[in-house]
């Protein structure tokens, strides 16, 4: 299957400034979205894709204002439906590099159905899901990723809905590329965005993002300076699953159950090696399920496997039809299979 995106170097060379628009960025001061915007503007010039072939499509919410701040083609659509518009764009023109920007409410609540179908179709686009575990633009209601007991204006006694784990959701839809990154590590974001872009097929990236106004410090237990060594598990393909100060802790399996072990006391070869290309979803499911309080939170590429993409399959079927029936003519269109003539 031919690569859908022509990785021809853009002429002239692009830099970050080429992707900045003249619009004032209107997120709250200190919002995690600034760092994400910056990281994507740093990533795109390095992809070798001409600017006019990049399309950013969003739904509704704070994160979905993103296209207005990117000097590419962009479409700020309606709440939850960005995956549908992105599907139309990508099917119409598979040569485009399509990025969907969504949030935990937009992507997993009102738009959960569309995200599910986008992932299972393996459309060759990248989804950036900004997860701040709160509704920001509507001023602070709990979201589908808020932990049980979250107190907000709509849940004064605490929320009672079990939260969605975005990575498990993506895995359930059999997404072919699943990753997580964090808004306080630009280098990691750029690396992750690049890997997502390079993947042929749907790429799902959860970004842990801080809402400074309505849910400040929600991710601090995971990624603050004092917590990150013990609570973040950085994934790298082919490397052992290690974390902690001096990488002194590792993950091993006890039967089917993962457990944390001191590296010093582990038997040789006992620590699990990260293999994102495992065809079986078990390895990815284990990692996607990790989180406080029992396990560190993984960041990086959790899963990356190959499957034919949706638009490639459409092209294949069209080519096959044309090979079998020839290119459709006006006469065939209008006359069909059976006509009669009146003299």
């Amino acid at each position, binding site marked *: 299957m031919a690569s859908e995106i022509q990785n021809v170097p853009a002429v002239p060379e692009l830099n970050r400034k080429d992707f900045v628009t003249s619009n004032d960025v209107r997120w709250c001061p200190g919002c995690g979205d600034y760092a994400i915007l910056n990281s994507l503007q740093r990533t795109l010039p390095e992809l070798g894709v001409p600017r006019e072939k990049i399309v950013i499509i969003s739904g509704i919410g704070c994160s979905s204002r993103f296209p207005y701040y990117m000097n590419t083609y962009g*479409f700020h659509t309606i709440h939850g439906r960005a995956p549908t518009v992105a599907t139309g764009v990508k099917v119409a023109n598979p040569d485009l590099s399509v990025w969907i920007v969504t949030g935990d409410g937009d992507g997993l609540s009102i738009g959960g159905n569309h995200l599910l179908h986008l992932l299972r179709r393996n459309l060759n686009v990248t989804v950036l899901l900004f997860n701040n575990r709160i509704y920001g633009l509507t001023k602070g209601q709990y979201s589908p990723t808020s932990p049980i007991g979250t107190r907000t204006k709509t849940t004064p006694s605490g929320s009672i809905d079990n939260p969605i784990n975005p990575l498990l959701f993506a895995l359930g839809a059999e997404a072919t590329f699943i990753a997580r990154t964090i808004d306080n590590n630009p280098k990691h974001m750029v690396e992750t965005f690049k890997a997502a872009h390079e993947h042929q097929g749907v790429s799902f990236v959860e970004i842990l993002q801080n809402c400074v106004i309505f849910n400040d410090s929600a991710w601090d237990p995971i990624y603050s300076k004092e917590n990150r060594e013990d609570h973040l598990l950085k994934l790298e393909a082919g490397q052992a699953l290690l974390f902690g100060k001096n990488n002194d802790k590792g993950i091993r399996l006890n039967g089917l159950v993962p457990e944390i072990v001191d590296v010093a006391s582990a038997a040789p070869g006992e620590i699990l090696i990260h293999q994102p290309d495992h065809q079986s979803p078990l390895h990815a499911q284990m990692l996607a399920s990790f989180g406080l309080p029992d396990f560190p939170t993984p960041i990086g590429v959790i899963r990356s496997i190959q499957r034919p993409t949706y638009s490639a399959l459409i092209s294949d079927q069209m080519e096959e039809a044309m090979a079998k029936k020839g290119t459709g003519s006006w006469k065939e269109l209008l006359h069909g299979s059976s006509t009669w003539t009146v003299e």
Partner: protein
Amino acid sequence: MTPSTRGFREMKAAVVRFAGDSGDGMQIVGERFSDTSVTVPNAIATFPDYPAEIRAPIGTIAGVSAFQVHFGSQTVLTPGDEPDTLVAMNPAALAVHLYDLVEGGLLIVNSAAFTPENLAMAGFASNPLDDPSLKKKYDLMEIDINGLVVEALKDSPLTMRDKLRTKNFFALGFTYWVYGRPLEPTIAYITDKWEKKLPDVAVANIRVLKAGYFLGETTEVTRNRYMVARAEVAPGTYRKISGNEAIALGLIAAAKKAGRELLFSGYPITPASSILETLAGFKHFGIKTVQAEDEIAAIGVAIGASFAGQIGVTGTSGPGMCLKSEFIGLAVSTELPLVIVNVQRGGPSTGLPTKTEQSDLLEAFYGRHGESPLPIVAANSPSDCFRAAYEAVRIALIYSTPVILLSDGYLANGSEPWKIPEEESLREINKPFADPSKPYLAFERDPVTLARTQAIPGQAGLEHRLGGLEKDTKGSISYNSENHEEMTRLRAAKVEAVTQIIPPLHVTGEKTGKLLVLGWGGTHGAITSAVDALRAEGFDVSSTNLRYLNPMPSDLGALIKGFDQVLIPELNSGQLSLLIRARFLVDAISMTKIQGRPFKVSEIRERILQLLND
């Protein structure tokens, strides 16, 4: 086997209705009768009437499926009011359809199906065939079709069950004898369909078809037979086409003419699904289809395709329209070309999924939040769906706007002969994308059409952002209150500008007089038939059909003012009449029917006569 005219009573037109259980193959024999009639040639129109359930319990009222054919030696514009011949394959079919049969009409029944069990399921306390009044009122022909089929197939290797499944072709054969129709087209059809895969079935069906015909020939020498003469049909090449097929072809033709690719995205819904099914078979024309996960996604995919420079189309029926309304608003706001096909059915809610209605007109006008006007066009016959779809694409592209195309279940499923147009006769559609050598403003407007010009992803230097937030005339987001009013009025003025390309109204009859019958959509055939007949009898009545509902044609006001009275027949509770009254301050008379069925010509005729005689 060409019949002589000896022994035939001549008729200008006849209506035959085949009715039976939904597993009895009534749609197939109805289609065969139609196809045979067009080769005579006769003018024809057909109407299938099938239940919402695929296989309702056998023998029940709910499971009755019917197919009506109207064929004539003159113009035929409707599938006909009442049948002259009714074929009833079981008691339930008789119970559902007998009331429509004209007095003295031919009633063919399969007497073998009139068992106590079937009679009870159809709600008969006693066997209606034993009632002498039935024989008095109708020309009753009782045939033990089951028995005769089994006898005709006594040497066939088919199972008893499969033998009995051929009984629809027996009924068809007998009906062919009554109307002196040739058997060859049906034999060719059976051969083509079954000879290779199921040769025994092909042989059995042909044998039974002939047995039905010969039954008439050998035993019914005194029975009336009917001859409908050849129609004087305009020379040309014809095909039979249903409304939904015609929509599919019209969309493809318009896209080809405009030099754009077509992407159709839909979600299965009765009675619109066959548009998606038809288009899925046109991949070799470069047509892309997406079966989306829901109605909302279906229109989202179409909008995405339009944004990328193709012509995005979605199709649905009433309930789906409700789901799409937020996205239609986005297309209005971003001024993207888009066609939304609504094949109307009885509502509200799930309503009458397989029955027709015209009750989504006001929804098309006003069924969105905010001020969100868009052009609305309506098809008026099955073959006219081609032109209507073509026009919808043309307007969408030239005016850079979403367009709603209204069809209905009656047009979608009905079929008629279509004189195939020459490609050259189709109007040009010319709407180029933005010129990359010039500065681009996404919402700069053409001074005449007020339409904006699209730049599409892939065009270097024209990168821009679209969205549902209000924008100023240059395309930048604006929350300014004066700007919002200006933009609201601009969007409305652009839709109103579509009157520039609306041709003058076609009027049947004089352009002034006592009574104008004003219709829209699928009522065209019934209204025109009634008005034509009354005019031939010397009555002062005219009619017109609105292809363009929004904006309304600029000559409509003057036409209405030229008549003493205006009658508006609609299959809803008076939606167009509400609009006409508000727009033209005229005391229009509303005529409504909300029964899931089209108007009969006689119903419109009677109402016109009442008004003219008052």
